[in-house]
């Protein structure tokens, strides 16, 4: 039987965006979660501020999901009827690269900053805003990756 390369590439791109960014977020949130648990064991009142910091590296996974969904719906993978030229499919795959890698690596880096931020909050609770800001600095690059992936997917001509 004939392989539909366009569809295959598009599906691979969507999967890559969701998986890589998701793995990054899982690692980042996991790191921050361990640090939070440590801080909360000393002072349960810190739970709220720690939770906010722990959440921050989680956004990359959402960005990955977003791009995956946009690719899937553009390629017609959700409705089940899909005829995609190989060029269009490969383009969609390439468009997923920024958020896949940008998301993966920035989420891990952001998780590390979040850990440091949680330790900062443990010692100086009043500096929570600064801890959050430092963590968000890393996210900038995930946001930029998201933007480029989105623009590229948007620009691919179907059919």
């Amino acid at each position, binding site marked *: 039987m004939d392989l539909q390369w366009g569809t295959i590439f598009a599906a691979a791109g969507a999967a890559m965006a969701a998986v890589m960014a998701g793995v990054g977020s899982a690692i980042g949130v996991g790191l921050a979660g361990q640090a939070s648990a440590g801080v909360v064991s000393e002072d349960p009142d810190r739970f709220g501020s720690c939770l906010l910091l722990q959440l921050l590296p989680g956004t990359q996974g*959402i960005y990955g999901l*977003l791009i995956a969904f946009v690719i899937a719906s553009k390629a017609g993978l959700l409705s089940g009827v899909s005829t995609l030229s190989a060029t269009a499919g490969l383009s969609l795959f390439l468009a997923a690269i920024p958020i896949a890698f940008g998301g993966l690596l920035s989420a891990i880096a952001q998780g590390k900053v979040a850990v440091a931020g949680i330790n900062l909050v443990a010692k100086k609770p009043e500096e929570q*805003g600064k801890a959050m*800001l430092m963590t*968000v600095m890393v996210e*900038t690059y995930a*946001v930029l990756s998201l933007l480029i992936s989105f623009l590229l997917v948007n620009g691919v001509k179907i059919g």
Partner: protein
Amino acid sequence: MIVSMKRMTLVAHKDDEAAILNALQAIRAVEVISSGQDYVAQAALERAQARMQQLNDAMRSVKPFAKKKAFLATLKEAQAEELFDLLPKATALSERLSALNRELAATKSEIDKNETLINTLRPWSAFPADMQAYAASKRVKYFTGLIASSDVEKLEEIDATAEYQLFNEGVERTCVIACPIEEAKSVSNFLKSLAWADFAFPKMPGTPAEAMEELSEKNRTLTAKKVELEGAVCDAATGQDALVEGAYDAAVIERDRALAAAELERSDATFHLEGWFPADRQADVEKAVSKVTDAFYLDVREPEEDEVPPSVVENSAFVTPFEQVTNLYSRPDPKGIDATPYMAPFYVLLFGMMLSDTGYGIVLAILAALFIKLKKPTGMSGGFARVLFWGGISTIVWGALVGTIFGMDFDTLLGTNNLFPLFVDPMENPIGMLILCFGLGVLHILFGVVLKMKLAFSRGDWQSAIFDSLSWILIVLGLIAFAVPSAVPGIPAVIGTIGIVMAGLGAAMILLFKGRANKNPVMRTLSGLGELYQVTGYLSDILSYARLFALGIATGVIASVFNELCKMLMGSPILVLRILGILVACVLLVALHGFNIAINTLGAFVHCARLQYVEFYGKFYEPGGRAFRPLAYQTRHVRVTNQQTPNPE
């Protein structure tokens, strides 16, 4: 707006000290700074701190028995005097509680100790003799100990004169060996070759079984006592949380006063207070002191050059909540400008653009409004709640401009034909949206530069205003004008020419005058070249506003993904599954959109703050002010109502 601060020196009779500090605490306008060290006051401060600690402990033991407070419960209100009336009763209660808790802890540890003893004696329960008396013989040496069961067989090799007996089964076996006193040494050496551990019976009469029975009996009594004590703690603590919390707040008020008193300098008859207060509160300060006594000397003056007053700002009701956003970064230098009034409108504008969904804006604004209405929060949480309220309002407007409500198209919902989006659809026209973001960015950044220019002019430094600030405005605007004719058809090329001339003028100003402090023309130009490299900084600052677009689509697309998922659930052709799907989808829609609102509000809040701090404040803001900490009622559980209004009119 930065409020100017006045430095005060107050001298009055020692007898009036407490009353004056009391009055100053009630008006919450004076920060007392150190003018000397006084050991008497130190001792009083330590007493006040000890009392606070004691009540804090009481609060902890009362807490498990208190009714859980509703999340939206407002703080109780009381006069400071009412709180102080609680102190004697609360102190008595805290002493009783701490005595009970001490006894409870002692009982528990006693029970644990007995339990451990029982456990060590249990392997010996078959031992038939009195634990203290069995080894009394002068002719026989007894070895009492535990031996690994694998080594038991080796005991057969022991000297013929020695006898041994085992008392239990298991991995470690209890064992007594008896031998004539002369053989003791050789038996002892023999035992060293085995897995043998000496055991000493506890100093208790009778056989181990009897001792265990006695210990269990003791523990039964102790457990009864423990239950009784726990009941007593429960009785004493139940329903007392309001009392203890109120008294704790009174102790805090007292401690703050003692802290201030420790900063005073005293002579035989007088005390001397140094402090800061906002210039507009001078009448209040004078009134407060003169109400207590007319025998005082008060000197008020402007801060001197080398003195750093605390930084206090005062703004309109709209801007005030945004001070919290600025405070997260840093308070303004008291000699600089307060940036909050300039930042607040941009904050609202950019926040709405990042969330950009009318439905989410409505939810956010309503939640924030309810929180403010019901909880009446003050300070940081109150400020942020109001910031989010305004952000929600702005989100509603932006949602209409880009045409999304709960991730759906406005047109689909209202049945209008392509009326929405009112402005630009980021999905259809992403480049247009990007240009809008960059445009806002340029506006925001240049506004920062204009503020820096204004600051320089107000300090009389026109050179800095023109060469360091105006030059950059010319360059940025000029380069944009230069690029426009080639990007947009129909714009005359002359605009581009004007642009390049402007940019060149700006660059020339920087090249020639950036290093104006330096006489050497080569060094001057080099320093100008270095400054010109900053153009990359401006470029990256402007590109940073792309996040407005990215976060906007993140919210919108995720919302539509959630809608899509729920639509799939509801689309089953089988009726039963369809009804079930609709039910699940309803619950899921609320939960998923709730999650999306929460995570994206957090994102919008912090990314918006970042744009303000890095891109905007980076251009002109002078941070570094220290917070104003007046002698006041820093209570946590009760809002003290003595003379609350800062302005008497």
